[in-house]
């Protein structure tokens, strides 16, 4: 299984670079993971999204509905893609240390 290293940080990730142990997540890791998504600088808007995902995840153990994410952060889906070019699931969730959703999605 691959390891992701960035500066001081070294974590286990899966084939697509998602964290294997989401409980180890912290803001430094988020910054580091963001670089793999072509986001070198996490702005307040990025953080708003990431934090929302994080909170939801801690409560429900999974990412929220995309529709809910958009509504509750106030970002239309287009905006989410602007912030994280590979999208809410592959981009934002990865930075927030969430696992990939699986199934018919």
């Amino acid at each position, binding site marked *: *299984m691959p390891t992701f290293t960035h500066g001081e940080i070294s974590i286990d990730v*899966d*084939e*697509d670079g998602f964290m294997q142990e989401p409980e180890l997540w912290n803001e430094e890791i988020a910054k580091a993971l963001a670089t793999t998504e072509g986001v070198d600088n996490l702005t307040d808007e990025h953080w708003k999204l990431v934090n929302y995902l994080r909170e939801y995840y801690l*409560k*429900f*153990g*999974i990412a*929220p*509905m*995309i*529709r*809910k994410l958009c*509504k509750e952060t106030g970002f239309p*889906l287009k905006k989410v893609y602007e912030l994280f070019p*590979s999208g809410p699931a*592959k981009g934002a969730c990865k930075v927030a240390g969430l696992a990939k*959703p*699986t*199934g*018919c*999605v």
Partner: protein
Amino acid sequence: MAEDKKTPEELAQISYRPPGKTWMDSTVEFRKGTYNYGAVPASAAYMNLPFPRKWQPTNEDWNLPEDWQKIIFEGMRERLNRYRSFRVFMDICVRCGACADKCHYFIGSGDPKNMPVLRAELLRSVYRNDFTAFGKLLGRFAGGRKLTIDILKEWFFYFYQCTECRRCSVFCPYGIDTAEITMMARELLNLVGINIDWIATPLANCFRTGNHLGVQPHGFKDSIEFAVEEFEELTGIKVEAPINRKGAEVLFVAPSADYFASPHYYTLLGYLALFHEIGLDYTWSSFASEGGNFGLFHSAEVMKRLNAKIYMESRRLGVKWILGGECGHMWRVLHQYMDTINGPANHLEVPVSPITGTRFENAKSTKMVHIAEFTSDLMRHNKIKLDPSRNDHWNVTFHDSCNPARAMGLIEEPRYVIRNVCNHFHEMPENTIKEQTFCCGSGSGIGTDENLEMRLRGGLPRANACKYVHDKYGVNLLLCICAIDKATLPPLLEYWVPGIEVGGIHEMVGNALIMKGENERATDLRGTPTKKVEEGKEVTEDV
């Protein structure tokens, strides 16, 4: 994926001319974009699958169990004795080639081993070598191959490049169904611990939480409640969406993506609107919160293990019958397997629509009705008021999902529904719809991103037919009744034919449904302004 993405023009450079050398000893190259990742050990272990381990197809050494060949042969013998389909299909193919260019993966890739006949030969050659007299005697000359690690790798590669869509079986003069062969091959691979993660992890999720996504009960409730709230904002109507309610008449089971992903979500809003308007006495279940069943793509045993919850939950909740949502492979399991694997459902009653009184004789044993059957019946009896002009901003076409079309024969019901709620409906060319429909290219548990290139290739025939109606009639919305379609067709169409969105038929029903006490609808369920409103706007602006 993003790094070496090919343009549609590049990807469409396909040659159907096979290479000069024989197919019998070529080896597989695991190139990024064409294969799926190995199962995460935790998921495999949770499902008690054999030999869970860290493993990727690109590894030179697959860490197979010591006696893997013996395991495969034993597994083959067992399955040959259990499945007449397997035995007969191993024996009677005449290699006439009628199936060859019927497979979407062959059309999209030109890889000769994606011809259904040759895909089956990959397995058949080993069968011949070790299970038939001629093969034992003449070996390679009789088309037999000794099982080697390269052949196992080839099985993995090509049997996870088959979506079990059954299109080839429609054309086969003996009805040889590659889906059956792929199922057997996948079961054999599972026996030596070879699984893909996009199937194994949904299995584990589904077993634990009731759905492939792993949505826990409170998360399920949160999502449904969110939809209820949003629906109220859109229409001013607060619908009831009971969860785990005992004593309801009907249990409603939908694919989990309907309450998680877009554009599935709009279909969910459609269900909610319809059930409210007709006053259906129903309940959702957080336990039976998945109609889909990735077990179908893994093994008969796991399919049964996952499917069991539907009847168990209907018994616990004391409902009379079960209604099922828009999903493709889910309906293959419900229509062709559920009664056999987990029936008989004697705790339920023959389904009767409480609104029209129609008795669903065709579902009298399984006691589960497809929502397209249910809704078309409502429409036939004029039990709901509809304003199809609310969908006038959509020029729609309908994509028959493989399983409802070829394993169920559900062809006219969804069309009847669409004709009642959409004024602009155009069929794709005849060779690409109904029983000849083309797969989205991502079915059977391989609709993930690591094999995107193969998905785009496999989806080419479908996308190309969409392009035809897009160019000819200005079609801008593809309707379908499958959650995998809804998930995988948007990126596919975006790639091959930008300008077509994807939706479900009950989204259209939700749009067109005239509800008692509703606000004037300025937008459809997705928030897109309806044509009426748009035209109205232009008029006022002109003035």
